[in-house]
C-alpha cells in the first residue's frame, strides 16, 4: 500500500506517533512518504526529540527523504540542521498526483 503521512501537529506525541506509524508500515514493505509541516520544525531541531532521531534513520527503513513545504523556512531549516538529518529532507515536488497514494494520513 502506498501512503502519504503528514505530520502537522507541534506536539512530541503526535509527531512521534505519526512517524512511528510510517516506520512500522515501511518495515512491512509498504511505500510511505512523510511530509513534515512547519509546526514540527521545532521538534526536528531538538536532538533529544524522538522525531529528530527517527527522521535521521529514514534511509535505514528504505524510505525516501521526507518532504518539506516549499517555502523559505524549509531552506532555513535544512541550513541549520546537522548534515545527516538534512540529508533525509527534501522540498515537496511542485506537482504531486495525490491519486498515487491510496491513503493520506495526518497527525
Amino acid at each position, binding site marked *: *500500500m502506498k*501512503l502519504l503521512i503528514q505530520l502537522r501537529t507541534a506536539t512530541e*506525541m*503526535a509527531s512521534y*506517533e505519526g512517524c*512511528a*506509524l510510517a516506520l*512500522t*508500515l515501511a*518495515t*512491512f*514493505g*509498504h511505500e510511505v512518504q512523510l511530509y513534515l509541516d512547519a509546526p514540527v520544525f521545532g521538534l526536528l531541531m531538538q536532538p533529544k526529540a524522538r522525531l529528530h532521531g527517527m527522521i535521521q534513520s529514514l534511509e535505514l527503513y528504505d524510505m525516501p527523504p521526507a518532504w518539506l513545504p516549499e517555502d523559505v523556512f524549509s531552506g532555513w531549516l535544512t541550513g541549520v540542521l546537522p548534515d545527516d538529518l538534512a540529508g533525509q529532507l527534501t522540498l515537496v515536488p511542485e506537482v504531486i498526483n495525490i491519486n498515487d497514494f*491510496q*491513503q*493520506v*494520513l495526518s*497527525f
Partner: protein
Amino acid sequence: MTTKTTLLITKDPSHPLAYVALRYAKALLNETDENKKPTLQLFFYADSAHLANRLRWQSADQLDLTQQWQALARKHGLALPVCVSTALSRGVSDSENSARHQLTGDNLADGFTLVGLSELAMMLQDDNRLIAF
C-alpha cells in the same frame, strides 16, 4: 465480490470524525447485499485510544462511543484492537501491561485488546481498502 476494508481510527472520541467512523462501520455492516458486504477490520490508534478507557466519564446526553463500539463488535464478531503504546501513553492499560510497566491497576474496556502497531501493518498486507478517521 467481498472486499476487505480496514478502518484506521485516530481521532479523539470528542472529534466529529470519531462518530462518523462508527456510522460508517455500521453502514458497511448493514449492507444487505452479501456480494457487496466487506470484511471489516478496525484499528484504534493515537487519540482514539481514549475510547478503550472504561473509566472515561461523560455526561448522559452524550453518545457513549465506547459502548457503541462494544455493542457493534459483539453483534458482528469484530475485534477492537488498540495500539498498545498509544494506549499506555494516554493512561489506558490492561493487567498484563500494568504488571510489565509497574502501573497500579488497569482500565481497559471490555472487548478492546492492546496490540502492537505491526498488527495494522499486517492487516494492510492483503489487497484491501484503508479508510482513516
